[in-house]
């Protein structure tokens, strides 16, 4: 019989105490594995969701808020930028792609965030090397919308569903206009799953989405003082009226009649449009070139008082290190403490049993077992208990993720993969063995020092 077999016998002899101590280790490991897997998913979601863009351009304010609002659709938008500013960024020769984003509204059902954007949003990877997969099509018409997988599932929406939007802001009124769902995104594990993407053209045509003339002019003066600095509201109204009439020149009676009955048939003039943010991808043959260009471009934009361009990766890295990372550290420390307490309970269990087992140890010694052998048997017992508990905890942890994944996905949009292993999990088992060796040492020494003659009554 080898040492492990002898140790296993002793464990089975005290099956209840052994099971309870192993279970306490298992629970500690379960918690730790769950924390690690969930944190891994959150970290991946945060770091990869912003991976497709070099910069986010938005109004001056909190950089983190701009990223959180634009990419993760949490927190409130800082302020908006004039649509012309988007045009300006788009036309910059260093910019490969600029995607406008208008945020603020939510769905009437479920309260999902609405993003007014353009179809090419879906042409860009949403994460490293991951392209959007769409059932149906992207928005072609101005009243078309694409919905995320979680939105479709939770609201039971599909292609053809007509949806209404709740206006963001103080009044919370429901817009009369309806968007039609033309595409459903496959799950991405990113905030896109919980978002409705409305065509920006339709978004602007909704009641209340046109900037009041006075406010629009104030903002234009701020951004373009040379062009609008001395303009009055009346002059702006005149300018827009003239531009509108010019745009209808050459139309037939039928063409004009086709949209004359609709309150918002005329497209909104650029001066009255706003974007919340602009996602920017820089031109460049290499990543280094792109990074350099984006840094320079960002510095140029941020020089003015109007706008800022932030690198989402930097902001998320800061968030992960300083906030999410700390939470993770606290959780890991707490679960590690649970495991240490479990280790102590193994120590107490084995140590308490030593009084009863001195005779067993003495018998083994009398049969020829060396001191090191009985020490090893006790140590093996501690290691077997810890390892068994650890393995059970491992299975339970991933099992818990497996059970929780549909619930978490439906509640938060996070896709938890129960088979996903965090590299740090590899350290768990050796750590447990080290802990077991530590807690088994003192009982092991008690066995080592057992006086055979005295114990056997000599």
């Amino acid at each position, binding site marked *: *019989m080898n040492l492990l077999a002898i140790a296993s016998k002793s464990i089975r002899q005290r099956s209840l105490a052994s099971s309870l101590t192993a279970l306490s280790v298992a629970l500690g490991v379960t918690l730790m594995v769950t924390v690690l897997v969930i944190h891994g998913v959150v970290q991946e979601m945060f770091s990869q969701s912003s991976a497709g863009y070099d910069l986010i351009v938005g109004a001056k304010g909190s950089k983190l808020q701009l990223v959180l609002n634009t990419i993760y659709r949490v927190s409130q938008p800082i302020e908006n930028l004039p649509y012309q500013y988007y045009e300006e960024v788009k036309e910059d020769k260093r910019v490969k792609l600029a995607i406008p984003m208008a945020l603020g509204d939510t769905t009437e059902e479920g309260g999902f965030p609405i993003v007014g954007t353009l179809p090419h949003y879906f042409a860009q990877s949403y994460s490293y090397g991951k392209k959007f997969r769409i059932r149906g099509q992207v928005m072609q018409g101005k009243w078309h919308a694409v919905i995320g997988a979680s939105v479709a599932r939770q609201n039971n929406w599909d292609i053809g569903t007509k949806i209404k939007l709740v206006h963001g802001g103080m009044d919370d009124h429901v817009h009369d206009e309806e968007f039609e769902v033309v595409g459903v995104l496959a799950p991405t594990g990113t905030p896109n799953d919980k978002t409705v993407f409305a065509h920006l053209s339709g978004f602007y045509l909704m009641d209340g989405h046109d900037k009041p003339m006075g406010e629009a002019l104030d903002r234009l003066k701020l951004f373009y003082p040379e062009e609008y600095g001395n303009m009055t509201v009346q002059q702006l109204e005149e300018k827009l009226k003239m531009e509108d009439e010019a745009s209808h020149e050459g139309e037939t009676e039928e063409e004009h009649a086709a949209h004359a009955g609709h309150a918002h048939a005329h497209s909104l003039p650029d001066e009255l449009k706003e974007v919340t943010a602009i996602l920017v991808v820089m031109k460049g043959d290499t990543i280094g070139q792109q990074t350099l260009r984006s840094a320079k471009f960002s510095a140029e934009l941020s020089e003015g008082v109007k706008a800022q361009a932030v690198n989402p990766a930097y902001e998320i890295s800061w968030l992960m290190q300083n906030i999410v990372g700390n939470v993770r550290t606290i959780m890991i420390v707490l679960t590690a403490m649970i495991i240490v307490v479990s280790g102590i309970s193994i120590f107490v269990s084995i140590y308490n049993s030593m009084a009863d087992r001195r005779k067993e140890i003495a018998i083994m*010694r*009398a*049969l*020829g077992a060396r001191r090191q052998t009985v020490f090893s048997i006790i140590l093996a017992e501690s290691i077997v208990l810890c390892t068994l508990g650890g393995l059970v905890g491992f299975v339970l942890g991933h099992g818990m993720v497996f059970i929780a994944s549909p619930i978490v996905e439906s509640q938060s949009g996070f896709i938890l993969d129960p088979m996903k292993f965090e590299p740090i999990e590899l350290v768990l088992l050796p750590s447990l063995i080290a802990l077991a060796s530590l807690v088994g040492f003192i009982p092991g020494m008690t066995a080592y020092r057992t006086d*055979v003659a005295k114990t*056997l009554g*000599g």
Partner: protein
Amino acid sequence: MSLLIQDLKKSYVEPDGSELPILNIERFEIPSAEQVVLVGSSGGGKTTLLNVISGITSPDEGIVAIDNHNIANMSEVVRDRFRAEKIGYVFQTFNLLPAFDALENVLLGMSFSGKGNDRKRAAELLDRVGLSHRLNHRPGQLSVGEQQRVAVARALANQPSLLLADEPTANVDVANQDTILGLIRDACTENNVSLLLVTHSQDVASQFDRVETLSDFNKPQKQEGETE
């Protein structure tokens, strides 16, 4: 010669710090395959003598040679292995391990000798003591007599050259005493094993050709200057 003891001294330190001599044996020997009974008064040092012979307790001085190997000179590690290989021990209280069944208790005796686990031999030994139908019973499921038979099988597991038996029939009912004793003696005869059996029982002692009284050859003396 299976066992040779020469100029052996062993004493214990009492709580007040004074020495209490237990053993002082000039010479004692057991030739190969001889069966010897040792009798003596309680507290006379019989069990201490068995512990010294088995290497469980170290002597203060002297020679304890088994098969011409002086275990008193051996390091503890070597002595442990030597005990496992050369000495069988049958205890008064059997000392079986409760978590292990009969077969495993016998195998356990083999585990520490380095001879490996010979399940076939363990089963044969249990068959020899009449327990072939009880191989997988734990000590708690065996009668007192059966437990002692397992202990005998375990003591013989490593084919020792010397078997030490400390009151092996003291806790066994009268009906089983002769059976146990017969088993021990027959097994020793069959395997050419020397036997040193400690007993209080005159009935047991009377069955042996050589009966030694410990006090006849053990003369523990207090050191000079100490009061009796």
